């Protein structure tokens, strides 16, 4: 089983490399076709994506909405900038947590690697505040009780 590598490039970028045991066409489609995206781009266990809009053409819209078990969720919007089937996708996205995070510019490349695909995804490293918000959102349900306690304190 191939493993993911994740490296920072300077202090502004993150580069993720992962190999898949399927040809570039399939991996590319799984990144752009809503019915396929909906099945895997789900984050922590138990989350679902009830809304998935993906219009894979330059200027096409992206909208992913995630729902967490027990209520709550967040969404992401974006636009496709460049598409080279089945080798390259450039898009921009922002999360709403609920305030929008700064635009994340992402380039994803799919290269034939034997009978599989080597995927390289280069994204912008979010700033400190965005990271904090994303960390907070990524935290799993153990956090909920604490937030409820925090809400009761109603920092005013």
């Amino acid at each position, binding site marked *: *089983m191939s493993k*993911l590598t*994740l490296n*920072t490039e300077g202090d502004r970028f*993150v580069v*993720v490399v*992962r190999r*898949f*045991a*399927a040809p570039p066409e*399939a*991996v590319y*489609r*799984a990144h752009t076709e809503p019915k*396929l995206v909906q*099945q*895997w*781009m*789900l*984050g*922590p*266990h138990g989350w679902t994506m009830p809304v998935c809009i993906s219009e894979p053409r330059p200027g096409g819209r992206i909208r992913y909405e995630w729902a967490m078990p027990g209520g709550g969720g967040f969404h992401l919007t974006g636009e496709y900038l460049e598409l080279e089937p089945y080798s390259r996708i450039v898009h921009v996205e922002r999360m709403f947590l609920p305030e929008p995070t700064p635009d994340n510019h992402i380039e994803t490349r799919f290269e034939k690697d034997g009978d599989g695909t080597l995927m390289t995804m280069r994204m912008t*490293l*979010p700033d*400190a*505040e965005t*990271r*904090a*918000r*994303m*960390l*907070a959102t*990524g*935290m799993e349900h*153990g*956090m909920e009780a*604490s937030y409820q*306690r*925090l809400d009761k*304190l109603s*920092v*005013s």
Partner: protein
Amino acid sequence: MPQSADRILRLTITYLLYNDFVMLNTARSARLDAAFLALADPTRRAILARLTKGEATVMELAKPFDMSQPAISRHLKMLESAGLIARRIDGTRRHCRLTDAGLDDIDQWLTMLRQALEKNYERLDELLVAMASKRGEK
């Protein structure tokens, strides 16, 4: 409290909770209890709100409150032992600031990103297998 200060404060607290729950979930309850106790007081919350704007001396922090310096110092001590603020002494001045809870946050963020992506890509591996077998059936 202005909304932006409130948000920064919540982010600071979020970092603390994240550290305690996800990164170092040993000895977490003692620190969390200290943090919640420290936050359960309007004076201490006002002090934290002031510190979201930047470092301040104990004198500056005491100014808006009708309180003796020893009383303010007790509040600061509680905030410090809860890990919410750090103090440094510069000659005769005592400075306070919010703790740099974000010090290792790039590492934390990368860890979270890696976990989320690994889960996603494991699902994608399965989906790709399913897509290939479907195509084989055609």
